[in-house]
């Protein structure tokens, strides 16, 4: 505890001097702003805008060129990115560990199915219109997070991590037992989303001589959702709430003394992160077209933690980078398993692609925390920095 006090004070001293270059450890919004001021403003801004525009155009054009496999992989990465942004608000920015993220993903996914699905056979569904079902699913996930707030507000760090472990097991229990809502072990089919007159299913619509099926259409929905989520989280982190959250992470008592309502902020960020997870769950469900309980287990929760640690704790870009890395890794390994050494097809006794990717991201977590605090995003930033210094 005393050590973290010194860390916090040196951190603020470093940024107060606005030397900014080394950033004094913690990636607070203040530190980043100070750094932005040092940089020659116009050229840097123009450069960033150009890069973002090029990247955006590329993402918009991809459905015209990629096949279904890669589009699905990309969509999974987008959904994961939304969930990871939420987790990064909680774990990265506030220092509250959560192993229960997969529970809230499940609430979102199944919530959407129940709200949008029709009653038929064993399953109950409300048959609501698409936009209402999505909003409702996100609100449900938020409400579930709110119900947990007596615990989320009081516990900190790793204690909360173990407490949230309970959520995963409760989730699995409910998913397997509430047959009429969840369909039990085999899960339930996901009703396709229809929004603004577009149905995101496999009926073909031809756009510029390219047949658009569910993945192509969902790709754009995913992009919009991700952009909105990233923008919102960026705003949260950069302004008053973000400062308060970082203060709670760096020194809880000092934050309380300065007037930050610690328990309320912790509970609030927990709810927000659950809502992000809920939305990610909806998108995942739409991509998979069938929700199964097995998917939303402890392994998934660990994957999300891996994402934010590998990408970079406490930032939106870190969450997105990590999500892309962790999601695409097994897909790439599966696709090219024949060409890669050490990897063999599942069931042949060798190292299966799924296992290989777990080795890789498990090791990546360890290596990054030990040797590259700040994650892959920090690596890119550092690279950019040295280049500028040379120029």
């Amino acid at each position, binding site marked *: 505890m005393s050590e973290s006090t010194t860390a916090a004070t040196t951190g603020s001293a470093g940024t107060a001097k606005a030397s900014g270059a080394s950033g004094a450890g913690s990636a607070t919004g203040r530190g980043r702003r100070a750094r932005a001021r040092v940089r020659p403003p116009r050229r840097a801004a123009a450069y960033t805008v150009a890069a973002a525009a090029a990247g955006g155009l590329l993402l918009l054009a991809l459905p015209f060129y990629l096949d279904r496999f890669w589009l699905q992989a990309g969509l999974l990465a987008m959904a994961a990115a939304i969930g990871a942004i939420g987790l990064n608000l909680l774990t990265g920015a506030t220092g509250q*560990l959560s192993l229960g993220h997969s529970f809230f993903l499940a609430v979102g996914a199944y919530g959407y199915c129940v709200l949008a699905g029709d009653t038929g056979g064993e399953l109950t569904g409300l048959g609501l219109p698409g936009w209402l079902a999505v909003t409702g699913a996100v609100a449900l996930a938020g409400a579930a997070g709110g119900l947990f707030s007596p615990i989320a507000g009081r516990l900190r760090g790793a204690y909360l991590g173990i407490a949230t472990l309970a959520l995963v097991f409760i989730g699995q229990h409910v998913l397997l037992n509430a047959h009429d809502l969840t369909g039990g072990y085999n899960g339930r089919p996901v009703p396709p989303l229809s929004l603004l007159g577009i149905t995101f299913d496999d009926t073909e619509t031809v756009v510029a001589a390219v047949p658009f099926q569910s993945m192509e259409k969902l790709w754009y929905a995913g992009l919009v959702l991700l952009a909105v989520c990233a923008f919102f989280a960026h705003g949260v982190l950069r302004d008053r709430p973000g400062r308060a959250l970082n203060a709670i992470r760096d020194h809880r008592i000092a934050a309380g003394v300065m007037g930050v309502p610690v328990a309320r902020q912790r509970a609030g960020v927990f709810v927000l992160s659950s809502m992000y997870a809920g939305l990610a769950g909806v998108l995942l469900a739409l991509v998979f077209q069938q929700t199964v309980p097995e998917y939303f287990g402890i392994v998934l929760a660990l994957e999300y933690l891996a994402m934010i640690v590998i990408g970079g704790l406490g930032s939106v870009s870190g969450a997105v980078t990590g999500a892309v890395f962790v999601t695409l890794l097994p897909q790439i390994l599966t696709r090219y398993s024949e060409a890669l050494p050490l990897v063999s097809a599942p069931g042949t006794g060798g190292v299966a692609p799924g296992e290989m990717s777990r080795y890789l991201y498990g090791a990546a977590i360890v290596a990054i925390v030990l040797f590259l605090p700040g994650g892959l995003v920090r690596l890119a930033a550092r690279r950019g920095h040295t280049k500028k210094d040379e120029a």
Partner: protein
Amino acid sequence: MTTFVELLLSGLSIGSVYALIALGFVIIFKATEVVNFAHASLLLAGGYLTAVLRDDIGFWAALLVGVAGAAAVGALVEFLVIRRYRGHDHSVLAIVTIGVDIVLVTELTRQIGARVLPMGDPWGAQVLTLGSVSIPQTRVAAFVTAALIIGAFLLAFRFTSWGVAMRAVAEHPETAALMGIRLGRVSSSAWAVAGALATVAALFLTVFPTPGLERGTSLVALKAFPAAILGGLDSTTGALVGGLVIGVTQSMAAGYQSDLTFLGRGIGDLAPYLVMLLVLLVRPAGLFGTRELSRV
């Protein structure tokens, strides 16, 4: 009544096994302030070594090798990973142990595959009968062994110089270091002890009535986390009480499952977590944990 007593005894026995795991968890936390999420993988490693070697060198030798192996893995993790961390945030270090856990568990479950490895223990499926109450011998052995080990450990903690060093480090690491206690040694010994305890627990988690060690065993081990949290992460007493509470709850919930059908099937596996949540609602630091006195 007979059912109740049987369930209670079997709950106490399985609870003492959870207490062994939770104790290791608490020792690591006290010595290094790290919440060790890799604990389940230490357990799996020890159990796997024992199960694989017992055909070649016999059960007792295999158990010894398993204990030593898991202790070595624990010490190695401490030496290669925990010691290299230069930051201050112990939450981040907890995430590192998750990374370690992912790698170790993936490798071990790959080795185990779909097999169920029997432990080959001397107790087998024999049942001890006292009056109308009958209980598997393995359960009795588990309780006695756990009680002996925990007792020995608590004595060592109080009276040996290792125990004093350990407690001093838990109290105040800097001062302990200034007094000539080697922090590195204390923390690797804590990890080694935790690994050894976990192996003994692995043995009793996989003997009769369970068929043997399988890939799901690490999930069973996860139930010791609520035991440690429920008792209070920094309290050895808490680990014992927490373990017993979890064990008895689980055994009761599973035993009276037919009366609890409205809660769905498999409520026994869920019960430990529900108890933990209830306790945390009332006492956020656990039953015996040090309460934080900083209120603002």
